[in-house]
């Protein structure tokens, strides 16, 4: 972990119609850091990830990834203008995302779900992509499921494929958007195990939006409590979970932990 922020939100505003989802949010993640975002529904947690993955535009402020503006680019005269699709494409290479609903491609086998983007987008040969995919399937414990279609797998297995698919693009930052919220309770553990293993063994920067408080506490370097479009409180997990400063954090933790 170094001190350079790989992700920086500077007074970022995001509105959906009249609703302000992010209210001048300031937020930083250092390279290699594992950060969990917790908070009530509608607090803007997932929006942070969706803005980073370029699935939602921002309405104000500035987001930088790896020191470069994400939603802006330099015009010829040196001023900043809204990012073009080409700029977003270039920036997106650094990021990967694991979705709440897995979002696997249902018409492709597990193997092709993982090799499709590396071959088509990164230009890897079929053999290279397959080798990479097989390593990743090994990592997520699904080496024997490569030729199945997503609907033939359990939710937990599908999400592990989702993780492998994102990793196959070798992102610097991996975004997890409530990765276990759509799973039956007995399948949550297998997905958390994989994420935990990644957190331990890789220097990947990880940003995790989750309702799994115990897990967030185990794997995170830092936990941010979001409320009403801002970070209400952040800190090391042992501090935030055991002795939060803010009354609002205390209430939230009491409600979800009881």
């Amino acid at each position: 972990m170094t001190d350079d922020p790989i992700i920086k939100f500077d007074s970022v505003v995001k509105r959906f119609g009249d609703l302000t989802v992010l209210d001048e949010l300031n937020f930083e993640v250092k390279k290699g850091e594992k950060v969990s975002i917790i908070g009530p529904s509608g607090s803007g947690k997932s929006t942070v990830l969706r803005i980073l993955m370029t699935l939602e535009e921002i309405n104000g402020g500035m987001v930088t990834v790896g020191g470069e503006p994400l939603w802006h680019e330099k015009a010829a005269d040196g001023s900043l203008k809204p990012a073009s699709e080409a700029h977003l494409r270039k920036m997106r290479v650094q990021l990967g995302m694991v979705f709440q609903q897995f979002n696997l491609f249902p018409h492709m086998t597990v193997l092709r779900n993982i090799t499709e983007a590396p071959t088509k987008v990164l230009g890897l040969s079929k053999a290279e992509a397959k080798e990479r995919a097989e390593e990743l399937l090994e990592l997520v414990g699904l080496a024997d499921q490569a030729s199945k279609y997503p609907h033939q797998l359990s939710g937990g297995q599908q999400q592990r494929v989702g993780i492998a698919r994102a990793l196959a693009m070798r992102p610097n930052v991996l975004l997890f958007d409530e990765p276990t919220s759509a799973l039956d309770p007995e399948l949550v553990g297998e997905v958390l195990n994989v994420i935990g293993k990644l957190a331990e063994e890789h220097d990947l920067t990880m940003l995790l939006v989750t309702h799994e408080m115990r897990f967030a506490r185990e794997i995170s370097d830092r936990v941010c409590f979001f409320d009403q479009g801002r970070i209400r409180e952040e800190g090391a997990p042992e501090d935030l979970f055991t002795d939060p400063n803010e009354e609002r954090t205390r209430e939230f933790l009491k409600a979800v932990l009881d």
Partner: protein
Amino acid sequence: MHWTEYLPPLMEGAWVTIQLTVYSTVLGAALAFAAGIGKLSSNWLIKAVSVAYIEVFRGTSLLVQLFWLYFALPIAGMAIGIDLRLPPVAAGVLALSLNIGAYGAEVVRGAIQSVHQDQHEAARALNFTPRQTLWNITIPQAIPEMMPSFGNLAVQNLKDTALVSLISLGDLAFRAEQIRNYTQDSTTIYSMLLVTYFGMALVLTAIMRSLEAYVGRWRTARS
């Protein structure tokens, strides 16, 4: 004349009908994809051409389109000095495929739009270009959705081929009409005609069903 003697000319006509159906369904499917995808294009010119094509050919009768291509187009061509005379087969196939393509285009468009937003987000997160997303993610998932409607359109097309007998193409309906004029045996001839069309429709439906199962095999694979 015994009814079995009607069979050889009827079968000759049936073969023409089959060819017309196959050619116009295949060409129609190609037109359906082109116009259906075109209607979703962000390029306004492509979009306008697609919409115009779809609306014109859905909004006019097949018979009029057929007559126009076969009788009116050559005269219009003569006026500007180009030979636009079409052989009956070409005029028939063209009219049928343009017509079925316009209906099919709406099926293609609807099926493409029915692919869930989640899939577009996953594709964007993996940095696919919009074109790669369309061809590798959206269309393969949309095709099985289209198949039931395409099956209907194909059968509709088979039955519509009977109209081409009106531009003197020797299809099944044309042959039947010839025999009837000669023998006046309307009941037998028209009954045979019904049965033959029905038989062909059954075969076509079966073909479309297996095609549907084939393109949607990823949806039905067992664990």
